């Protein structure tokens, strides 16, 4: 640890020296942020500038992030690949109040997730946040019900297809932008009124594609880990990778 203490102190000193060179906290004066704040609402009729930046002005970055998500989930699926004998454990939740309240909580969380996704370009929210909340609603079914309910509600291959559909829809909407607007991810729908759901052109479609992909990716991830957890200890071997 002495080696790390010395190296860590030196590294921390370098980091602090570098950060002191930044302008004072609160005195942001560069042009890009100020320009976006000034022109986002008149140009794109969207009131959530962060949301319109994610899906329109920096749409290519979001495309890359979506494919990072997709590739990570593919990697996890490959690492944990094993078709288990259907060893369903006896973990049914038997308490009636938990199941009743849980059913109400699942429905509420699902509706909340849909609301957060839908108004992503009007108020804070969007496909990423709402997608995680929707995935939470599905995973709550496992917590309040047990493995049997969860597995019958969410079979594996429709989920994987939904995730691929979300990622592919984002890329294909970009090509539609080329056909109708001359640029990849260009806007091809009417702009509408700022502050209502009908605004910001083709961003709502991108928003929903992202929400579907994030939700399906998280549920697939959890299902993969849960599948491994359900196995008896000695019967799982990881994929034989290159050595």
């Amino acid at each position, binding site marked *: *640890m002495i080696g790390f203490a010395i190296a860590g102190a030196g590294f921390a000193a370098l980091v602090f020296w570098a950060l002191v060179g930044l302008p004072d906290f*609160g005195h942001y004066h560069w042009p890009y942020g100020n320009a976006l704040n000034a022109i986002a609402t008149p140009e794109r009729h969207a009131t*959530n500038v*962060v949301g319109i930046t*994610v899906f329109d002005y920096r749409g290519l970055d979001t495309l890359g992030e979506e494919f990072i998500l997709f590739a990570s989930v593919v990697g996890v699926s490959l690492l944990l690949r094993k078709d288990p004998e259907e060893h369903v454990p006896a973990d049914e939740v038997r308490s009636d109040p938990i199941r009743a309240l849980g059913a109400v909580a699942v429905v509420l969380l699902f509706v909340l997730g849909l609301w957060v996704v839908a108004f992503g370009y009007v108020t804070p929210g969007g496909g990423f946040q709402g997608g995680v909340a929707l995935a939470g609603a599905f995973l709550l079914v496992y917590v309040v019900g047990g493995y049997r309910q969860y597995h019958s509600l969410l079979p594996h291959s429709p989920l994987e297809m939904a995730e691929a559909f979300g990622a592919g829809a984002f890329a294909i909407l970009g090509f539609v932008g080329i056909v109708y607007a001359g640029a990849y991810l260009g806007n091809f729908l009417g702009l509408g009124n700022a502050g209502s759901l009908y605004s910001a052109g083709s961003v709502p479609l991108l928003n929903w594609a992202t929400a579907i992909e994030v939700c399906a990716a998280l549920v697939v991830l959890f299902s993969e880990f849960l599948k491994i957890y359900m196995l008896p200890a000695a019967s799982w071997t990881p994929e034989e990778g290159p050595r």
Partner: protein
Amino acid sequence: MSYLPYALAGWIFVVGLYGVVSSRNLIHLAVCLTVMQSGTYVLLLAIGYKNGAAAPIFRPSHHPAVDPVVQALTLTDIVVSVTVVALILALALAAHKESGSVNPEEIADFSG
């Protein structure tokens, strides 16, 4: 006092790095990695902050706002890093199956 948020970002990063270096458990290592990532989020948001400005949500009318670009980068990064940490944990599970322990030093000595 005006350098405090930047100092916080540096502090979180170094603390997370200490956790990664001195970890004896791969799962503990993955969580310390997320702590390091949160240091970069704090740095990004601190760069974009403007005194006396509000969030960049212009309802009902325009007002001075903080930088939206760094917020856009940060919010996609937070969600995507969950899956990257899940990939690291899947590797930890595979290593545990091969060598019987989640201690990085014991796994390094294990030859397959």
